[in-house]
Structure formats: C-alpha cells, structure tokens
C-alpha cells in the first residue's frame, strides 16, 4: 500500500481546502434550512403568510381617524415597515423589494373620502410590476370600493371605513387539491434544498482538493519512475482509486451526516433515496476529477476548469435557480450534464414533480452513465499518456553533482 500511503500524505496537505469548502457550505446551508423550516402548510396559513411576507410603507400626512383606519386595514394583512421619507431610501427599498409599495396618504384624504371620491385618493410608489404589487393594489381597491359603497349606503366616512374593514375579513371557500402523492413528507421541500445545493459543493470541493493530489501523483517524472518500478501498474491504479474513493466518500459522508442533523434524526423513506442520489452524484464528481487530472497538469487551468464546471453546471442545471425558471434553450443544453439529472431526481423526491420510481431509476442511471463514460475516457487518456514508450529526451539532468 505504498502508493495509497503517499496519496494520503499528499492529500493531508490539501485537506484544509476541502474543509474550507465544507465549512463555508455548512455555514450557509444550516441557517438557510433552519430559516425555511418554519413555514406552515394549511390553506389558510399560506394566504396569511403570503401576505405577511409583503412589506409596505405608509406615510400618513392626513393623520385622521379615517386614514388610520386605512393604515390599520393594511397593517392587519401586510408587514408595515418604517422608512425615512427620502428618495434614496425609498428607491433602494423598492428596488430590493424590502417593501413592495410605498403609500402616501396626502392631506385632505378624509375630506375626499367623505365625498365618496376614491379615484387616485392615495399616492403609491412601486418599482416592479410584480405579483406582490398587484395583490396590494387589488386589496387597496377592494377597500376603497367597499368604503365608497358603504358611504353610498348612507354611512359617514369613518363608520364606512370600519364597516369595510370588517366586511373584508370574509373568507372565500377555497379547496386545496393535491394531485401529487403525499409521500414526500419524509423528504420535505425545505430540506430538499440542502441536497440541491450539495450538487455544487460536491463538485467544487472534490475537484478543488482531489485534482491537485492526483496531479502530484501524475507528475510525469514521478509517474515514469513508478511505471518502471517493480510495482504492477494495475496495483498502482487500484491504490490511487482507493485513495480517491476514501476522500470522496469521506466528504460525501460529512455532508450526509450534517444533513441528518438538519433533518432532525435518522433519514426516513424518500430521504434515503436522496442520499442514494447524492452518492451516485459523488461518484460522478470523483470520476470527473480523475478524468481532469489525467490530462491537466497546471493548477491555474484546474482552478479555471473547477469554477467553470461547478458554477456552470449549477447555474445551468437548476442548482442555484430552479429549473422551472430557466429558459428552454438552457435546459436543453443542461441535459448533457449530470447535475441536470441529479436535480430532476431530487425534484421527483421532494414532490415538485409527481413521484415515479421508474423515472427516478432512469435519472439515477443516466447520472451513473456519466461516471462510467468519464472512467472510460480516463483509461483511454491515461493509456495514451503514461503507458506509451518512455520519453526519448530528458529535458534536464535529474541530479546535478557538480
């Protein structure tokens, strides 16, 4: 096991890079998952929560009981945020969507309302023609429509505002139908995000750490020296592969165990399938790394390839941005990348797509096929590169005794 020991010695020097990746990933993934695990699931909860996530800012210059009623109506549904009445602050808050609309209730609001004038009664600033902005406008219009109707019914503006506020608490008869099976309870979407992001970090950490080690092992002069030693070349390959497997599986296990902590115990049901999916993907990451190190021997190029492969696949295959938001052209190109199938399998498991075990198997097999293709390519490249006849020329004397 001489080669295995040397491999581990070299790996030891690089292990801090892997730990850096692992540490940063867990540092970001754990708070994110903890933050998103509190969401409710019932129909009423979703309506309430959807609105309460929308921020709104109100500048009430009229400051009358009527304007306060209107502000209260919005405050009951939305999150009211205090902002400085300054163009720069308002612009930033609207652009970055910390508030979706900034409402100004001008002086004379109560008087106009009393007359039943509701057209353009408040000033509203918004940046994006978004769903949030549309919902807010819809609620505001409903409020003033109801107030003006009550006023037309003979009520004064304040009573009309109070009556409208009460009337608008009415709930619609909503039925939530689920066409997907409920088997994803063991693998909820919030938690599935952890495994989704793992597609990026596994590739980045494995290439970034393992490639330099394999490059050191494949250094031409060392490799030629090893080739002409008494060591059987298949034994050499086996030991290097064993070393690589120990590292890759070790990194994968750290993520799986950290996932268990987030999960809140031992995985159940479909979560184990997600673990299997990530294991196959880990093999793909390992095979890509071994392939790269077979023909690249420059750290700068490895760094570039690592960024291109890990970030490229993550952006194009739906790791950082959900697949449903990506363009059709991007997804067509992404089909030729393993991360695309990893994410597809993850979507089947978390219930984003209707679960189908045949499809899941198919996706995992496609991922595995990438690993097999990479392994075959590595054998071809390695044979051509290292098992050819010995170099005819020496570039420099190995030892200078002068």
């Amino acid at each position, binding site marked *: 096991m001489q080669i295995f020991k040397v491999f581990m010695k070299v790996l030891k020097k690089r292990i801090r890079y892997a730990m850096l990746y692992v540490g940063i990933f867990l540092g970001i993934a754990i708070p994110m998952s903890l933050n998103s695990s509190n969401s409710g699931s019932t*129909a009423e909860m*979703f*309506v309430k929560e*959807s*609105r309460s996530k929308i921020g709104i800012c109100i500048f009430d210059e009229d400051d009358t009981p009527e304007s306060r009623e209107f502000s209260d109506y919005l405050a009951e549904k939305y999150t009211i945020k205090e902002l400085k009445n300054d163009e720069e*602050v308002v*612009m*930033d*808050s609207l*652009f*970055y969507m910390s508030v979706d*609309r900034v*409402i100004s209730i001008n002086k004379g609001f109560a008087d106009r309302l009393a007359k039943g004038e*509701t057209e*353009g*009664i*408040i*000033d509203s600033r918004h940046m*994006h*023609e*978004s*769903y949030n*902005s*549309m*919902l807010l406008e*819809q609620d505001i*219009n*409903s*409020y003033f*429509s*109801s107030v*003006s*109707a*009550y*006023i*037309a*019914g*003979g009520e004064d503006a304040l009573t009309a505002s109070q*009556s409208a506020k009460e*009337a*608008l608490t*009415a709930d*619609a*008869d*909503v039925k*939530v*139908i*689920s066409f997907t099976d409920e088997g994803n309870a063991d693998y909820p979407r919030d938690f599935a995000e952890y495994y989704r992001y793992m597609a990026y970090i596994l590739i980045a950490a494995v290439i970034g750490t393992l490639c330099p080690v394999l490059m050191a092992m494949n250094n031409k002069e060392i490799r030629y020296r090893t080739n002409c030693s008494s060591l059987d070349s298949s034994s050499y390959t086996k030991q290097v592969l064993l070393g690589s497997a120990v590292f890759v599986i070790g990194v994968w296990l750290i993520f799986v165990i950290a996932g268990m902590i987030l999960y809140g115990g031992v995985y159940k049901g479909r979560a184990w399938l997600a673990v299997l999916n990530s294991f196959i993907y880990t093999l793909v990451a390992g095979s890509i790394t071994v392939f790269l190190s077979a023909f690249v021997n420059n750290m*700068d190029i490895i*760094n*570039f390839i690592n*960024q*291109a492969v890990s*970030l*490229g696949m993550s*952006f*194009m295959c739906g790791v950082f*941005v959900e697949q449903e*938001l990506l363009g059709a052209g*991007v997804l067509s190109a992404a089909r030729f990348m393993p991360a695309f199938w990893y994410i597809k399998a993850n979507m089947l498991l978390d219930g984003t797509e209707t679960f189908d075990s045949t499809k899941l198997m198919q996706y995992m097999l496609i991922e595995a096929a990438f690993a097999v293709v990479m392994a075959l390519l590595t054998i071809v490249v390695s044979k051509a590169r290292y098992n050819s006849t010995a170099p005819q020329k020496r570039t420099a004397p190995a030892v200078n005794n002068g």
Partner: protein
Amino acid sequence: MFFHDLKYMLLSGFRIKSFLFWLMLFPILLGTLFKVAFGNVYENDVLFRSIPTAVVETSDNAVFRQVIDSLEEADEPLLAVEYTDEDNAMQLLKEGKVSGIIYVGDKLSLSVTEQKMDQVILKTFVEQYGVNEKIIKDTAEKDPSKIQAVVDKLSEDVSACKDIPMTHGDPDIYVQYFYNLIAMVAMYGSVTGLHITVQNQANLSALGARKNCSPTPKSVSMLADLAGSYIMQSACMILCVTFTHFVLKIDFGDRLPLVYVAAILGGILGVSFGFFFGSVNRFSFEAKIGIVMAVSMFSCFLSGLMMGQMKGIIAEHIPWLNKINPATVVADSLFSLNMYSDYSRFISRIITMLIITAVCTAAGIIVTRRKKYADL
C-alpha cells in the same frame, strides 16, 4: 527610468496566468453564467402575468361574466379565463395549465393545487364577491332605498392608487448581479495592488530584494508599479464592462461612458486598497493574499454578489455601511446611473471612491518609504 519600469511592470503583469484568469476570464465566465441563469427570472418569476383560470359555471351568473369581460379589457388583465366543464377544468389544473378553478353558482368557490401568489390573488378576487354580498345585505338591513346606489358604486371600477413614477431605468432586480460582478472585478484589483508591495518588499520576493538595492529611487519604481497596476486593472474593467454590455446585452442605461468611468475608478480603488494592505504589514505573501481576498469577497457579499437582497437589507438596518463599503460604492455608482436621472448620487459615490483611493494610496506610500531591512 519611470517608463522603463512601467513597461516591464506591464509586460510581466500581463504574463501572470492567475491575473489573466481571475481578472479577465473568470468575470467573463461568471457573467455568462449569470446571464444564463438570471436572464429570464425577472420576467418569469417577478413580473405579473395574467393568471390562467378555469371557470366552471354551475348556474348562470350574468354579473360574473360582465366582471370578467370588463377585466379582460385591460392591457394585462388580472385573469386569463377559460370557461369549461368540471372534468376538463380538473385536467387543466392537474397539468398546471391553470392556476385555479372558480366555480360560479349561487356563491363563488375556488379550487387550487399550489399555494403561491397566483392563488392568493385568485382567492382575493373570489372573496371580493362575498364582500359585495355582505355590503348589499348590510344596506338592505339599514336602508333598503339605498341598495341601487350601493350596487352602482360596487360595479364601478376603482383605481385608488395614483402611481408616482420612480425611474426610467431598467428595474430588473437581477441586473444588480452584473453591477456586483463589475464591483467584484474592481475588488480583485486588490490582488494586483498587493503584487506591487510584494515586488517592492525585500523580505517577500527576490525581485523586491533586488529593487531595494538598486540605484533607482524607490519613489520612482513604486510610482511606475502603481501606474502599471492602474493601467492593467483599467484594462480588466474595460473588458468586463464591454463584455457585459455588448456581448451579454446588459442594459446599463444610456450613459455608458460614465459606466466605464465608474468601473475604472472602482478598479483603481481596488488596486489602492491592495497596495495599502500589502504595505502596512509584514505578513507572508500567502497570508496577505488570503486576507485581502477574504476582505474583498466579504465586501462583495455585503454589496449583494452572493445574495441579491443584501444591499437592501443593509440599507434598512445599517445604511452608513453601504456608503463606505468599497464594493457597494462601486456597484451603487452603476445602479444610480441606471435608476436616477440626476447625477447627485452618482457624484457622491465617485467622490467616495476617490477619497478611499487617495487615503489608501497615500497611507501605502507613507508606510513604504524609508523601509529598511537590517538583513535578508
């Protein structure tokens, strides 16, 4: 001697592979990936589109049809309605072709599958019917003679919001990733700045040792190195802006020359920051690189490179930080060119950049001059 040093600084600088990668190739790669990933998100996920809705009429409701007809007259109507039977509606819902089914009978009811904003808007629409019923019922109890007036009011279209226009620029929130990309390249300039100190500190490089015992005044060689780094970094900034605007077609507004000015000044700021940091301590080269990169990336994180809303969150809680964080200042100068028609915010960000640059450069020069080495 100045031009001789400058020439060789540039020649050697452009031959550093890591420089070419991190300051030229990596931004191109990352920018392309941003474009691929975020190109459609604003339109697909943020902007409102008519909500596809199936309507199943269990009994005739002329008023409902009238409301739907009036809604469909808008440019971007609230609902895109398809009248159908229940089986077909269910099929459409299952296939995700509609966001919900409205059942029209004596009362309205709604069936949905997902729980997103589409469905909340549909629910609000359906609720409005219940509200109208309650208002008419309340009026009937109090003063039946006013019912017609109330019905007339309820059938009127209300537009209570008088919209105040905010900007003529591109409000796509994902464009800010490209502002931050440019800010990131500017901050990577700190590594270029760091190289100046490494090449001039005798304890860090052979070149530094050679320079320290050469007859060229340190001020001349240092200024030549600084000028060379500024030129190299400016070239990177120009490449980055040109690529994002002309190849990726990112809209920076109609004041492109000023975008180049802001980006170049940002790059010079980055170089000065690296020069300052490299000068004020005697850490090893690796330690300096590690710390400078960590500080630069943290600065970019605060400006929103990794998490788009970060700048907005800071603006809400610690607004002064946005005004001094170098990456935010660079990104914000580009943001202000796009979003504001006047120049006050842009000028204030440019002045901040110039002040940080001047302070870092002056401090770097002060601590470098007369530095002596007892032995090496």
